[in-house]
């Protein structure tokens, strides 16, 4: 079975995003960029399925600017076999990405597509579910465990009340939650090896997809700031404050 994993290049999760003074967006100039953390978990899960013998080939796909090749090289260094970049300098929304991935899925015929549950830049949490809809496939979102069993995948999902387990008919979409696995670091020899793995560069037009945004961002502002309050020295003083605020009787 072939696996497709989708990865996005985003602001590094350790960097505090700064809103541009003109309100047009978040300043990404000279900011460290990395693979979206949830996508690293997706790549890791694909590699583990391959190591268990449940998968034969892993294709990593990204939609984004030329520099998104870096995220794909990271995926290749971790253990993906080849990569496809749908290169565009325009912003592509989850719906556009899902349409492109659906076309690639039609060409590649994978048994499963694994994606991060959300990207830490736009926090949309949509692409996997949209891709499942467009392909007419089953979806296991927010996965904390994935087991393959013949023509089905058993997926444990992190839901608001706890955990839920569902059985999905393959081919299926899986989106990853934090506790699915702990992604490996790529070793230096593997980083070197990744440089010679195949990486195909395509354009949205190659797939005949209109990926023009449907949402217009009118402005981006900083959230209202919270001021630090007071420090108290003892539990009694703390209780006193809580009483003043009417929080406890």
């Amino acid at each position: 079975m072939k696996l497709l994993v989708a990865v996005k290049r985003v602001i590094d999760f350790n960097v505090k995003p700064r809103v541009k003074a003109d309100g047009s967006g978040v300043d990404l100039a000279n900011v460290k960029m990395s693979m979206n953390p949830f996508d690293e978990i997706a790549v890791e899960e694909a590699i583990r399925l391959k190591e268990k013998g449940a998968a034969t080939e892993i294709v990593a796909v990204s939609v984004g600017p030329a520099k998104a090749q870096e995220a794909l090289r990271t995926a290749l260094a971790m253990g993906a076999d080849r990569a496809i970049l749908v290169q565009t300098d325009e912003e592509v929304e989850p719906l556009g990405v899902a349409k492109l991935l659906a076309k690639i899925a039609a060409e590649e015929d994978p048994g499963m597509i694994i994606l991060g549950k959300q990207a830490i830049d736009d926090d949309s949490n949509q692409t996997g579910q949209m891709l499942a809809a467009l392909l007419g496939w089953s979806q296991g979102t927010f996965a904390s465990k994935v087991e393959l069993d013949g023509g089905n995948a058993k997926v444990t999902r992190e839901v608001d009340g706890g955990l839920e387990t569902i059985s999905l008919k393959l081919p299926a979409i899986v989106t990853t939650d934090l506790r699915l696995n702990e992604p490996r670091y790529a070793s230096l020899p593997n980083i070197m090896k990744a440089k010679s793995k195949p990486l195909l560069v395509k354009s949205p037009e190659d797939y005949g997809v209109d990926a023009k945004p449907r949402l217009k961002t009118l402005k981006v502002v900083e959230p209202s700031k919270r001021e630090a309050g007071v420090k108290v020295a003892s539990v009694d003083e703390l209780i006193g404050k809580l009483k003043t605020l009417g929080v406890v009787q």
Partner: protein
Amino acid sequence: MKTLVWVEHEGGKIKDSTLPAVTAAAKLGEVHLLVAGKDVGKVAEAAAKIAGVGKVHVADDAALEHALAENVAPLVVELMGHHDAFITPATTTGKNIAPRVAALLDVMQVSDILSVESADTFTRPIYAGNAIATVQSTDAKKVLTVRGTAFEKAAAEGGSGTIEKVSGGKDVGLSKFVGAEIAASERPELTSAKIIVSGGRALGSSEQFHATIDPLADKLGAAVGASRAAVDAGYAPNDYQVGQTGKIVAPEVYIAIGISGAIQHLAGMKDSKVIVAINKDEDAPIFQIADIGLVGDLFKIVPELTQKL
């Protein structure tokens, strides 16, 4: 504009998370509800009583019992033939279903809205709440998920909606429910609790987490939350997690115990009315947003606080 709001329910009762979504929908126009599930007659009756509700569409079928997105989405798409907006709470159920519906309608969803600015313009958090974007949807129909803490809850009583049965909601044969481990708790639900006591990695172990946090929560009638670090370390179950990728909460009082205050945790709780922080590190970022801070050993402070309250 006619809106269709997804009603979340469990055990024959409407979940509180539905009510802020109704408020958001009412800002757009007429509010219709969708109650989908198995044997949901009682839920539909309760839904019709929510203030401001017009019509309640009820789809009663075994295939809808566990709200599997594969079975629910075609039903919603059919109803969207005569509605203009599909709205769900931004819960794990809503987040699972809404994008599937949006893609089938060829609509770009607006996730996690914080406000309705006009019929097509909304604000939403991006970058873990470090920025707020105002976005305008150019799609004819809208698909929205609603952040529960950003809207008042609609009144659960006082409405007189009409109930209408709808067919559809077949088992499309793509997925099956296998089982669930839903924690049964006497405590209030995290997302609707008035007080939350939350523990971090400094608790050190699952035993110490529960021995320290639970008695204080019980004394205050509070819900228990946890930081991602505490959940990752196995001190608390995943459904306790407060933060960007966990639950977004805004209680009257949030008591952060042994939580340093990573950006992604703050994103989930910084809209709480009063934030109390107890931490041994006086430079912990949590103190920069806390209304009341107490520096010291939580293993001494918390039992003392519990006893004295």
